[in-house]
C-alpha cells in the first residue's frame, strides 16, 4: 500500500516536473512574461519627415493593442527613434536599440539606403529586420539575408503587373516607358521586362530615363510620343509624374496611361497636373483609400476611423500613411500572436515566414498576405484602379505576381 502510494507520489511529482517543460516559455533579449520590446527607426525630422506619421500610426496601434490586454498577455513596448533618413544615424540608433535597449527585433525601419546600412549588421547579429518600409525588390532574399523581410509589393512586381495587364488587354500595344535613373526606376524597368517576357520585348518601343534633379521632362515625353507609343508606363516620382501628365496633354498625346502607385496621390499629383488631363489614368494599389466613398459602409474602414478618432484625434485622415502604419502593425501583431510563448528571434522569423492567406481589414478585399521559407515578399497582389477625374475607381480582379 505504502509502496503504491509512493509510486503514485512519484508519478505525480514527475507530471508536475514535466508539465512546465511542455509549455516552456522561451525568450530572447527583449521578451519576457510581461513585455515584448520592438525597435523602430524613421525620419521624424529632416526632408523625409513626412513619413514620420507611419511611426506615430504604429505607436498608436500598439497603444490600442495594449489597452485591449496586449499580445498573449504581454504589453508591446514600441521604441521608435528618429534617424532623419541619414544612414549613419540609422546605424547608430539601430545599434542603440539592439545593444542598449535590447529589443527582440527591429520592425518597419523606413528607407532603402537606411535599411541597406543596417542589413549586414542585423543579419550578423541574427536580429530580425521585419517588414521594412521600402518597395525596393531586394528585401526578399532569404538565402543571403535570412533575417530581413519586406512587406509592401515591390516596384518590380508592380511593373510586371502592368506589363501582364497590357499583354492581356491591349493586343497592339506599343509601350513607352519613363523611369527615374536610380534604383527605384530601374526596379520598374526590370519588372516591366520580366512581365513582358522575351518574346514580347519588341512591344517596348521606347524606354527613356530622367534624373531626379532634372527641372522638366518635356523632351522625354516628346521622345516617347515620337517613338509611336500608344501605351505609357509612367514610373516617375510625384513632381515629374505631374509634369508628364500635363505635357502629354499639351502635345495631344493620348496613350493608355499607367501611373506608379508612388505618384497616385490625388492632392499632390493629379490635381496639380490638371484632373481633366489625368482622367482615365490607371494605377495599382493594395490599400483601401479611407476617403473613398465606396468604403463608406465598410467594417474595416469604420474600425480604422474609430481608432483614428480615439488614438490620433489631431491627425489628417487623408494621410494614407495612417492606413499603412495600421496595416503593417496588424501584420506584426498576427506574427507575434502566432509565436505564442516562444519569443525567440528565430521563432519570430519562422512565424513571419509562415503567414498563410492573412486578410487585413485595410487592404483591398481579396489581397492576402502569404509568406514561406523561400518567399519573403508578404504582399504580392494589387488591384487596378482608373481615375475618374475625382477619385480612383477600382476595376477588374485582384492580380497577383510572384517575384521570380
Amino acid at each position, binding site marked *: 500500500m505504502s509502496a503504491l502510494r509512493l509510486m503514485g507520489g512519484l508519478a505525480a511529482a514527475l507530471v508536475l516536473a514535466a508539465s512546465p517543460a511542455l509549455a516552456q516559455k522561451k525568450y530572447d533579449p527583449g521578451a519576457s512574461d510581461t513585455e515584448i520590446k520592438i525597435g523602430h527607426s524613421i525620419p521624424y525630422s529632416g526632408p523625409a519627415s513626412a513619413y514620420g506619421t507611419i511611426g506615430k500610426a504604429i505607436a498608436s496601434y500598439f497603444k490600442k493593442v495594449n489597452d485591449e490586454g496586449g499580445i498573449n498577455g504581454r504589453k508591446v513596448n514600441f521604441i521608435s527613434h*528618429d534617424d532623419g533618413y*541619414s544612414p*549613419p544615424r540609422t*546605424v547608430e540608433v539601430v*545599434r542603440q536599440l539592439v545593444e542598449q535597449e535590447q529589443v527582440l527585433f527591429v520592425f518597419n525601419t523606413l528607407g532603402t539606403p537606411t535599411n*541597406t546600412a543596417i542589413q*549586414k549588421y542585423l543579419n550578423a547579429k541574427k536580429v530580425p529586420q521585419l517588414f521594412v518600409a521600402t518597395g525596393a525588390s531586394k528585401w526578399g532574399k532569404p538565402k543571403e539575408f535570412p533575417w530581413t523581410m519586406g512587406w509592401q509589393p515591390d516596384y518590380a512586381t508592380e511593373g510586371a503587373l502592368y506589363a501582364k495587364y497590357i499583354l492581356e488587354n491591349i493586343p497592339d500595344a506599343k509601350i513607352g516607358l519613363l523611369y527615374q535613373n*536610380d534604383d527605384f526606376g530601374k526596379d520598374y524597368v526590370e519588372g516591366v521586362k520580366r512581365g513582358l517576357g522575351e518574346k514580347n520585348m519588341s512591344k517596348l518601343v521606347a524606354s527613356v530615363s530622367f534624373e531626379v534633379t532634372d527641372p522638366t521632362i518635356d523632351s522625354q515625353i516628346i521622345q516617347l510620343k515620337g517613338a509611336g507609343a500608344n501605351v505609357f508606363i509612367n514610373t516617375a516620382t510625384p513632381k515629374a509624374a505631374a509634369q508628364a501628365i500635363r505635357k502629354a496633354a499639351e502635345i495631344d498625346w493620348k496613350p493608355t496611361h499607367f501611373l506608379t502607385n508612388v505618384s497616385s496621390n490625388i492632392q499632390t499629383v493629379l490635381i496639380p497636373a490638371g484632373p481633366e488631363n489625368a482622367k482615365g489614368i490607371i494605377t495599382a494599389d493594395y490599400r483601401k483609400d479611407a476617403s473613398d466613398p465606396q468604403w463608406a459602409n465598410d467594417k474595416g474602414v469604420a474600425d480604422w476611423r474609430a481608432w483614428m478618432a480615439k488614438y490620433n484625434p489631431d491627425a489628417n485622415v487623408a494621410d494614407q500613411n495612417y492606413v499603412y502604419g495600421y496595416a503593417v502593425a496588424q501584420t506584426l501583431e498576427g506574427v507575434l500572436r502566432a509565436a505564442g510563448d516562444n519569443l525567440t528571434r528565430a521563432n519570430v522569423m519562422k512565424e513571419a515566414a509562415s503567414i498563410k492567406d492573412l486578410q487585413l481589414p485595410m487592404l483591398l478585399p481579396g489581397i492576402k498576405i502569404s509568406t514561406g521559407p523561400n518567399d519573403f515578399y508578404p504582399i504580392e497582389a494589387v488591384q487596378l484602379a482608373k481615375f475618374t477625374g475625382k477619385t480612383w475607381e477600382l476595376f477588374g480582379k485582384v492580380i497577383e505576381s510572384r517575384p521570380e
Partner: protein
Amino acid sequence: MAGIDKNLRWAGIVLLLAILLPFIPGVSDYRIFQLTLVLVYAIALLGLNVLTGYNGQFSLGHGAFYAVGAYVAAIMMDKWGMPYYATVPAAAVVCLVVGFLFGLPALRLEGHYLALATFALALAVPQMLKHKSIEYWTGGVQGIVIIKPDPPFGLPLSQDQWLYLFTLFVLAILFLCAWNLLRGRTGRALVAIRDHHMAADTMGINTALYKSLTFGVSAMYTGVAGALGAIAIQFVAPDSFTILLSISLLVGVVIGGLASIPGAIFGALFIVYTPNIASDISKAAPWAIYGIFLIVFMYLMPTGIWGGLRKLAAMIRARRNAS
C-alpha cells in the same frame, strides 16, 4: 619649454585614459562605437578648425571632403579588396589634392563669399555621387556596403574595440602633427593672415600659398575622418553626406572652441551626443531642443567649451592666489 612639457604630459595622460576606456567593464560595444564616432568627428573638426579657427577662412562645405574621404575608403575596400588601414593614407592624399585645388580659385573669395562657394560644394557632392558616369564606382543611390575589419594578430578584442583603438591611434598622430604645425612659424603665419591679411602680406608671408595649403591640409584631415567614419559605419551612400553634415561640423568647431586643438574633442562630443539627448527630451521637435542647447552654450561659453573651461580654470587659480 616648461609649458610645452606640461601640455604634452597632460595630453599623454588623456591619451592613456582614452586607451583604457573601452576596457572598462560595462562599456558596451555600442558605446565604444559611439566613442569611435566622437574620435572621427574630432579629426574632422580639427581639420576645419585649422582652416576656420586659425586661418579665418569659412567653410560650409567640409561635408564634401568628408564624403570624398569616405568614398575613397569604400571604393578601395569594395572594388579593389584593399585592407582598411591602407585606405586612410589614400583618403588623405586624395583630399589634400582636392582641397588644394578647390582652395586655389576659392582664394579670390573672402569671408561670406567663400562660405557660399563651399556651401555650393556641399550641396553638389551628394548629387554628383549619384551620377551615372561614376555609378560603377560609387554604387549610385544604393551606396556601398563594406565589411568591418577584424582585430589583427588574433588579439582578443571585439571589432568595435579594435576600430576604436585604431581610430585613436590615427587621431593621436594627426593631433600631434597639427599641434606641431600650429605652434611654430607656420601657425603664426596662419594667425597673422587671419588677423590682418594685408599686414601679413607686408611681412613677407606668401598668403596665397598659405591659404591654399591650409585649405588642402584642412580637407586632408576631414577626408581621413571620412574614411574612418565609413569603416566604422560600414556603409556609404549619398544620403549620408547631406548639407546637415557640413553645418554640424561648423557647429562643432564653434561650440568646441575656435583656434584650439582640444576644442575639437569637445565639439565632437557635442555633435554626437546632443542629437541623442535632444530626441530623448522631445520626439516631436528634436531640432528645437538642439537649437536651445546651441543658444545656451553660446551664451554661457562664448569662446566655446574649451575657452569656457580655461576661463573657469583661470578664475579658480586667481581666487586661490588671492587667498
